[in-house]
């Protein structure tokens, strides 16, 4: 038996919005510690890894590990039928799950809607992601990051990220000209959502596709802050933390100059 009740249903709605552009079908792997998902986009350039801890649900019950193969677009459509304040309950028979049932209760408990989503068999490659100590980590406002990506998209399809001791520079160069945004280290502001915290071991300079970054910033509604992890010649990590409920992590392979 699998049952998970999420009092803050909007979280699940936002999560689906954040990943459904990147991946079409994916397995939600459920076990006693929570619900996890790992999937790559078709061209194997980006990867999304998300975790919803069991502590985020009240109650959470999963007797044995199993996975729910879901078409994310369909799930997202069904979740659109839930109100933002609704309580969402997920249920499935972990023995022979061929459908996932979703129940949406309005806060006043006067309206209860129920949906069933057919499941699929998805055979998916899993990647092992090594724990990395990044050369540089940046914690900054998620809306600011979204804006930078959107602005530089005007100039080019790719952005260079250069991290030095006290500042990070995003720059782009294209046919019509060039542009850059520099953010200075700024840890002491009163409002945490305006902070810029840079931790640096060695300075790095990497190039990434803006199209994918724009896609990642669909995670912005999940958190006020975003964490970027960069190492030379390694994939970029973009992480949105959902307080104690879990996280969503995006990985993006860098662009490589000619060998």
């Amino acid at each position, binding site marked *: 038996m699998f049952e998970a009740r999420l009092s803050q249903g909007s979280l699940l709605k936002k999560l689906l919005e954040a990943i459904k552009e990147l991946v*079409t*079908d994916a397995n939600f792997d459920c076990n006693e510690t929570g619900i996890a998902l790992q999937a*790559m986009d*078709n*061209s*194997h*350039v*980006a*990867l999304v890894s998300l975790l919803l801890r069991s502590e985020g649900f009240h109650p959470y019950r999963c007797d044995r*590990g*199993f*996975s729910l*193969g879901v*078409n994310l677009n*369909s799930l997202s459509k069904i979740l659109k039928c839930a109100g933002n304040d609704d309580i969402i309950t997920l249920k499935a028979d972990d023995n*022979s799950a*061929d459908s996932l049932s979703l129940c949406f209760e309005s806060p006043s408990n006067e309206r209860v809607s129920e949906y069933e989503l*057919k*499941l*699929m*068999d*998805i*055979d*998916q*490659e*899993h*990647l*092992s*992601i*090594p724990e990395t100590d990044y050369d540089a980590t940046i914690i900054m406002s998620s809306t600011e990051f979204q804006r930078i990506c959107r602005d530089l998209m005007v100039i080019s399809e*790719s952005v260079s990220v250069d991290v030095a001791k006290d500042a990070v520079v995003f720059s782009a160069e294209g046919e019509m000209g060039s542009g850059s945004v520099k953010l200075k280290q700024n840890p002491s502001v009163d409002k945490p959502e305006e902070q810029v915290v840079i931790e640096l071991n060695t300075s790095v300079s990497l*190039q990434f*596709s803006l199209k994918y970054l724009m896609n990642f910033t669909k995670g912005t509604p999940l958190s006020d802050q975003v964490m970027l992890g960069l190492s030379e010649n*390694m*994939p970029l990590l973009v992480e949105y933390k959902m307080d104690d409920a879990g996280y969503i992590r995006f*990985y993006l*392979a*860098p*662009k*490589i*100059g*000619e060998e």
Partner: protein
Amino acid sequence: MGIHGLIKVIGDHSPNAIRHNEIKNYFGRKVAIDASMSIYQFLIAVRQQDGQQLTTESGETTSHLMGIFYRTIRMVEHGLKPCYVFDGKPPTLKSGELAKRLSRRKEANVNLEEAQELGDAADIDKFLRRTVKVTPEHNSECKKLLSLMGIPYVEAPCEAEAQCAVMARDGKVYAAASEDMDTLTFSSPILLRHLTFSEARKLPIDEIHLSKVLGSLDFTMNQFIDLCILLGCDYCDSIKGIGPHRANLDAKKYPIPEDWKFEEARELFLNPEVLDPKGIELKWKEPDVEGTVEYLVREKGFSEDRVRKGIDKLEKNFKIATQGRLDSFFTTLPSDPKVPSKRKNEGEKAKSTVSRPKAKRGRPRK
């Protein structure tokens, strides 16, 4: 032409081995393309509206150059790094098959004349296509064009598919691209089909993984080669009464008839005559703009505007940084054997009782 009915056997018994992909997902990949096969395709498919081949004013065929030029540009535009492999001399075992093809072409020639007398346009078109043959001139013209475009090519000592396969196995290229299924029999780890097809046909690229084919058939490579020979290859006759269905059932135990060049064919698949891939250096160079224009426009009567636009695309893609892939940074985990195997059993049980309605996309749970 490759292995008779192999794609059907794989489709029936090992659907997991075939993946459909869009060309844009292959950016950054190096692929070895069976040139003779593609040129043949171009000669057949690249035609004017009235079904005639494209020619210069003096009547020389240019369909193959048209095909090589634009289809290569399309691949490069999507970030692929193509290299072409040309056939060398055919193996002696293939002489029977080649003789058959020659007689078929002769027959087609006769039919063509008849059709022309009768004036049946559809028949003329049909038989005209059957008379198509790739000549050494076609090959050398394509090689000249490729070197002008900065695209590398390899001249195989024998069969091009075998050379493509060995290059893919050695990691020189990501995959071998051919329509010939025997590329798999030459143990290419990955085979791409439909790569050089026209964009207008909107066919997805079939990516076939040899290891998955072997895995789901539960065959060793030698058994797989035997299966292919039984199905019918270019190198020896097949046994009457054995087709895609029975060959698969019996390949493990069927007695091998005597005075049959089975052993030789098997040996040819196992140890084909190829160049050592380690000695091959593939280099993609900047295209020679003026040279290409000179050749295609002045000599072959192509439109200068279109040729220049095409080369522009080649040049542009030569310069930009290529997008990396996560596979090269993170390692793939073997899929958890516990969970799927359990479900498979359940699936079989379920299949025998009720068939469930299909989900909209993907494979529904069985």
